[in-house]
């Protein structure tokens, strides 16, 4: 079956060094095989790496930044506002991506583009303006040092319109903090793997998009009918209202109950004052509005306002679970207003809340254990729950001042400077761990260890299922669920939709095969789509392997082996090396990779079709 619709079949390639942009055609083979989003990203990155013989400095001009929505982005179906940012990550030196919600990807599609790739480095701080058929690179050195919100406001003022979507970096990105993020629609962030630093390294302050085109849909009537079922299912789900009201904040109470809430830098899995930073607290005195990504009935986003006290007036879009846990319980902060303030500060400076919380937690514990001296901390003591010092440290990281200059280099940089810090900082492959403790769930540990971007939960989030149903799971079942998640979840990123309706409300993944059919006109079964998604997982593995990854890197933070949570239901539990090695070998075996985690050489041929890289020839 062929692709009849759903794409513009256009790829915008921008060379910031030469200051030019060209619209190139995407072939049907390419579209079909890589679908979109992180699929397009992975393939373009692979081709770029091959061109540079796999020698690329993540923060150098040759690193390619790909921004790609998927064929379902912006289409009338549940939660279709997703968009992927893909590049070689400065934090891990490996494949990296981060997907964001909001409306930026939708606008990109309406401008008639399926993917943007950016290379080079602009001579001056610049803004990339994409408007329907036109692309302009504007030098805007005046934006230097502006925070994300200010920059978005100034750009809209300069252009004289609010009807644009802006993706911008803050001071963190300009200073190439290795966990800097890209901020769109004021507060939607592509947070992980340091994509903001890549924009910073390219002297690219912002990307502004405006488009009016119809998003191509092959069969509108079919789509509407399928939607009626999907939306009805969601609206009638018993947790639908709860998701609208609390969003991801409901997870705080759950994680605490199960003993997987990061507390005091993962020293503990429960937090005594968890009820002061949970969803109920938010609803009782802080939440002033809902926020949804494009076409999402769940609206899991919250908007909070601090009404009194020393943080009065702080408005933040958020928090969600990860931010609240990493900047709250993980740092020993039990004051919700302070968490909101820290979250807002991260938004303004453009740094990732998860990594920021992870790094600061490690600093506090490092100081507590005597690994860091007072002099290392620039003479300012820092302890658990010390709001003022923590907010100060967030500023220092983004501005690379004092100790912040080391912290800004992330887990790898910190360990290089103070090797002993390896005991306290939780990371895999250089990416700081998300807010789910894996010590009581072997499948989650495997998920973190084998995730292509590092210790992030999006690739496979199996922890809840294992804790509830998997006490007696065999190794086989644990590996299978990890691999299944690693197949399904990337498919959502490739299609350009959010996975929450599926994972949280149980909306059947079958719907997405139908959505794909109605949008593109190609009859592909879910299994076929999952096969393509699995190919992408293999491709990102290949990228990492060619960049030096092997079994030794598919490991876990030292804490996970050595230090069990102190109290709560998971107290005393750690991952044993033997258990982990056994399950990792099984995982490789099921993946068809060798004992060292290397995919077979024949796999590489699968991706050797140079279907796209028209832009290679143009150089």
């Amino acid at each position, binding site marked *: 079956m062929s692709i009849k619709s759903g794409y513009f079949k256009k790829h915008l390639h921008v060379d910031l060094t030469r200051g030019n942009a060209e619209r190139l055609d995407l072939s049907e083979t390419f579209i079909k095989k890589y679908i979109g989003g992180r699929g397009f990203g992975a393939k373009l990155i692979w081709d770029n790496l091959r061109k540079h013989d796999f020698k690329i400095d993540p923060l150098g001009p040759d690193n390619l930044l790909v921004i790609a929505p998927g064929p379902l982005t912006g289409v009338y179906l549940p939660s279709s506002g997703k968009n992927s940012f893909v590049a070689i990550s400065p934090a891990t030196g490996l494949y990296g991506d981060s997907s964001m919600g909001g409306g930026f990807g939708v606008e990109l599609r309406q401008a008639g583009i399926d993917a943007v790739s950016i290379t080079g480095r602009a001579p001056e701080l610049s803004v990339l303006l994409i408007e329907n058929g036109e692309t302009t690179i504007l030098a805007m050195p005046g934006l230097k040092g502006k925070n994300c919100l200010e920059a978005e406001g100034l750009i809209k003022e300069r252009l004289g319109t609010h009807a644009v979507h802006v993706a911008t970096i803050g001071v963190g990105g300009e200073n190439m903090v290795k966990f800097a993020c890209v901020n769109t629609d004021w507060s939607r962030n592509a947070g992980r793997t340091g994509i903001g630093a890549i924009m910073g390294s390219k002297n690219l302050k912002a990307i502004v998009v405006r*488009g*009016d085109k*119809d998003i191509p*849909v092959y069969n509108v009537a079919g789509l509407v009918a399928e939607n009626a079922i999907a939306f009805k299912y969601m609206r009638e789900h018993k947790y639908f209202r709860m998701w*609208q009201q609390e969003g991801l904040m409901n997870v705080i109470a759950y994680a605490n109950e199960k003993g997987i809430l990061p507390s005091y830098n993962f020293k503990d899995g429960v937090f005594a004052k968890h009820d002061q930073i949970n969803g109920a607290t938010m609803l009782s005195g802080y939440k002033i509005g*809902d926020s949804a990504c494009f076409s999402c009935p769940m*609206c899991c986003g919250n908007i909070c306002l601090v009404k009194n006290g020393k943080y009065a007036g702080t408005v933040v879009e958020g928090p969600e679970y990860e931010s609240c846990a990493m900047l709250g319980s993980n740092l020993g902060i039990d004051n919700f207003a302070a968490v909101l303030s820290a979250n807002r500060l991260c938004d303004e400076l453009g740094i990732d809340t998860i990594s920021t919380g992870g790094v600061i937690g490690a600093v506090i514990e490092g100081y507590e254990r005597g690994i860091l001296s007072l002099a290392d901390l620039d003479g300012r003591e820092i302890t658990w729950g010390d709001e003022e010092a923590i907010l100060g440290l967030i500023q220092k990281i983004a501005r690379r001042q004092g100790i912040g200059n080391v912290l800004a280099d992330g887990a790898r940089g910190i360990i290089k400077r103070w090797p002993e810090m390896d005991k306290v900082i939780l990371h895999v492959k250089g990416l700081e761990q998300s807010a789910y403790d894996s010590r009581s769930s072997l499948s989650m540990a495997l998920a973190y260890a084998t995730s292509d971007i590092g210790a992030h939960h999006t690739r496979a989030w199996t922890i809840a299922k294992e804790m509830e149903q998997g006490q007696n799971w065999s190794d086989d079942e644990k590996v299978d669920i990890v691999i299944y998640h690693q197949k399904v979840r990337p498919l959502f990123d490739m299609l350009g939709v959010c996975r929450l309706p599926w994972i949280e409300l149980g909306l059947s993944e079958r719907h997405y095969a139908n959505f794909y059919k109605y949008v593109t006109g190609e009859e592909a079964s879910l299994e076929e789509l999952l096969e393509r998604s699995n190919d992408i997982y293999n491709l990102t593995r290949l990228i990492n392997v060619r960049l030096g990854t092997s079994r030794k890197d598919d490991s876990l933070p030292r804490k996970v082996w050595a230090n069990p949570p102190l109290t709560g239901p998971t107290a005393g539990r750690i991952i044993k090396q033997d258990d982990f090695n056994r399950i990792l070998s099984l995982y490789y075996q099921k993946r068809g990779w060798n004992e060292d985690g290397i995919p077979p050489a024949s796999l590489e041929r699968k991706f050797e079709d140079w279907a796209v890289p028209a832009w290679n020839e143009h150089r």
Partner: protein
Amino acid sequence: MEGYIMTKRLTVIPEQCSGCRICELVCAIKHFRVNNPKKAAIRVMITYPHPVMRMPIVCSQCRSPLCARVCPADALRLVNGVVQLIEENCVSCYKCLEACPFGAIYAHQDCDLPIKCDMCGGDPECVKACPKAALRLIPEAVLGESKRLNNVLSYAQMKEIEFYEKGEKKIIRYAEIGEES
């Protein structure tokens, strides 16, 4: 629309809106059969961080429509309670866009005519699709009722009431009830 008289109004409760823009999508699909939120007769305006606001802007079907008043071609008429665009009269001068005090009429480069809410013949798609009930179709008689009620409640807060405690006459204000003395 024939014979139907619109006695209900499409109203917006901005505090409920999450900014998901499903209303825009269903509007464009209903009227143009395309997936393009920019072709909708309703748009969600979003401001952040001060003030935080998400507000769908849609035609109020004014009884004395300024758009119709400025129309040089008699293309906008109030018919059965809905301000209707008479397509064959319209000259696409877009004077109506500028005249509307709410900016609730839209233009798109692909469309020859202004895009204006027609209430979907009395059963607006946006109202049915809104997952937050931020868009509601309510009888005109009910319009403003919540504001009236708020006004009553805030007045009552200040109202003094007399009551007897152990034979002694006392006066208290509603606002003081429940407060610790």
